[in-house]
């Protein structure tokens, strides 16, 4: 029997664990990966002040802090199911079954696949996979690759791969089809890139070439769809080309790249072969929320948050007694926002455990999350605040329906 169990040891889970432990609450953290950090591990970018955000260092610091506070960790342990029974949460893993009063789901996000012909060949991987291989496992995903899918995440990871000595032939689009939809439409992609340009994300424009400065976004805007593409850290970004096929006998040997028109349709006869030994697919992130679903938590589709998210309030409570959520399971945002949410979730669980006098601290923590969100250098969705409001409105609606049904 445990007081608090946290599933996921990423920025949200680790921060929540530290917060609980600091308030004298016993915590167990479960994660299926080998080490703590989650998606934070792979992160590596330059801050606006010129210092480097090193995800491995951040993870290690948080992990060691948690260990020193007596938090217990179970790594390499996948959770298969959770259920509520006699006022407790039962957590079923591959190894043991755990029982707890408070349960935090900090399971993070998963990458959306973008099916491209040939994508099952060995050597094709999600862009996050290449990031983990390079920065965490320290093995090159290949010598030369192409990234299919142009978005904030893929642009940052392209820079990280180049930093490690991996050549990126180009970032480009998938051929438009029923499934790739927006990701294959140059107008939509350009739109989404211009949405982030007002934040002038410095990791985009600072690193590498001094010539770039803000020119990258300017060029995009001024030369609407430049035919040769634009370069970022010397990596060509092609919005006028798309991969029609990944080819190779037993492994990736190259991609077929074709010119596309402004609507994303292939110009016939424009196909060329680009030899590469790996391909990254960047379809963006969505909240990884299966455990909230099996628990019976209500869900809402909020596009601005990246997909279906479990209903929750600003205190990170779900409508299910003792079940909490924090981090990307609540919507796709950066690690710093996830950590801020983790603090709030940790405080909320400590409060429910009977620790007195936390109300003001919880309110401060909610405000801090907003501040962190507003000052984030990179936002995955430009309308994130709209999404946050939507889910809170759903929470209010849900609570008032519940009150009405009690009255009857």
């Amino acid at each position, binding site marked *: 029997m445990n007081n608090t169990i946290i599933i996921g040891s990423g920025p949200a889970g680790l921060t929540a664990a530290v917060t609980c432990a600091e308030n004298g609450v016993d915590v167990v953290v479960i994660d*299926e*990966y*080998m080490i703590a950090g989650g*998606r934070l591990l792979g992160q*590596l970018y330059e801050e606006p002040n010129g210092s*480097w955000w*090193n995800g*491995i260092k951040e993870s290690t610091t948080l992990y060691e802090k948690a260990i020193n506070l007596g938090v217990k960790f179970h790594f*390499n342990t*996948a959770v298969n199911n959770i259920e509520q029974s006699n006022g407790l949460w039962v957590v079923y893993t591959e190894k043991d079954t755990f029982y707890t009063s408070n349960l935090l789901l900090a399971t993070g996000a*998963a*990458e959306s696949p973008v099916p491209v012909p040939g994508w*099952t*060949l*060995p*050597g*094709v*991987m*999600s862009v*996050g*996979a*290449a990031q*983990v*291989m*390079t*920065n965490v*496992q*320290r*093995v*090159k*995903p290949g010598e030369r690759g192409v990234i299919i899918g142009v978005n904030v995440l893929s642009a940052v990871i392209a820079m990280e791969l180049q*930093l*490690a*000595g991996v050549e990126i032939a180009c970032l480009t689009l998938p051929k438009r089809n029923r499934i790739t939809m927006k990701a294959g439409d140059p107008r939509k992609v350009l739109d989404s890139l211009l949405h982030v340009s007002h934040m002038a994300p410095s990791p985009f424009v600072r690193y590498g070439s001094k010539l770039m400065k803000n020119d990258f976004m300017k060029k995009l805007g001024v030369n609407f769809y430049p035919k040769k593409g634009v370069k970022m850290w010397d990596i060509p970004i092609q919005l006028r080309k798309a991969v029609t096929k990944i080819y190779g006998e*037993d*492994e990736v040997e190259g991609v077929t790249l074709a010119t596309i028109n402004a609507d994303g349709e292939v110009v016939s006869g424009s196909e060329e072969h680009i030899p590469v030994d790996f391909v990254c697919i960047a379809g963006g992130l969505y909240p*990884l929320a299966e455990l909230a679903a099996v628990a019976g938590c209500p869900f809402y589709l909020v596009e601005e948050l990246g997909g279906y998210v479990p209903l929750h309030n600003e205190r990170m409570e779900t409508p299910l007694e003792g079940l909490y959520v924090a981090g990307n399971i609540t919507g796709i945002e950066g690690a710093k926002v996830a950590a801020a949410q983790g603090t709030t979730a940790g405080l909320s669980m400590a409060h429910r455990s009977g620790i007195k006098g936390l109300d003001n601290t919880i309110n401060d923590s909610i405000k801090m999350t907003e501040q962190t969100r507003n000052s984030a250098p990179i936002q995955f969705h430009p309308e994130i605040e709209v999404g946050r409001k939507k889910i809170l409105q759903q929470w209010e609606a849900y609570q008032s329906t519940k009150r009405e049904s009690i009255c009857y």
Partner: protein
Amino acid sequence: MTRRILDHPILGKIEDKNYVSFTFNHKVYKGLENESLAAALLANGIRTLRHHEESGSPRGFYCNIGHCYECRVSVDGQQGIRACLTPLKEGMIAESSGQLQTSSKEDGGLENE
């Protein structure tokens, strides 16, 4: 040819360099202790981890963090283990699974069972 990033301009040098031996499909390889099995194999130039149970097409790791199950292999006799989540140990024995025999539908195969 080395695929390892032994030195990195920001992350620095790899500190733990304890090489261990393991076997994959009956061949002996070396890898770093506690790195993922998928990483150890990739560092040895191996991308194909299994062949699809039905089509027999080659497959490698895809998501690298345990979500997609594309990298499943057998490890020390246990089937369906995700290579991307498995820390490499001395003497580990890994094998890829291959195409499975399926009874055809005309013979009243799986659908009628």
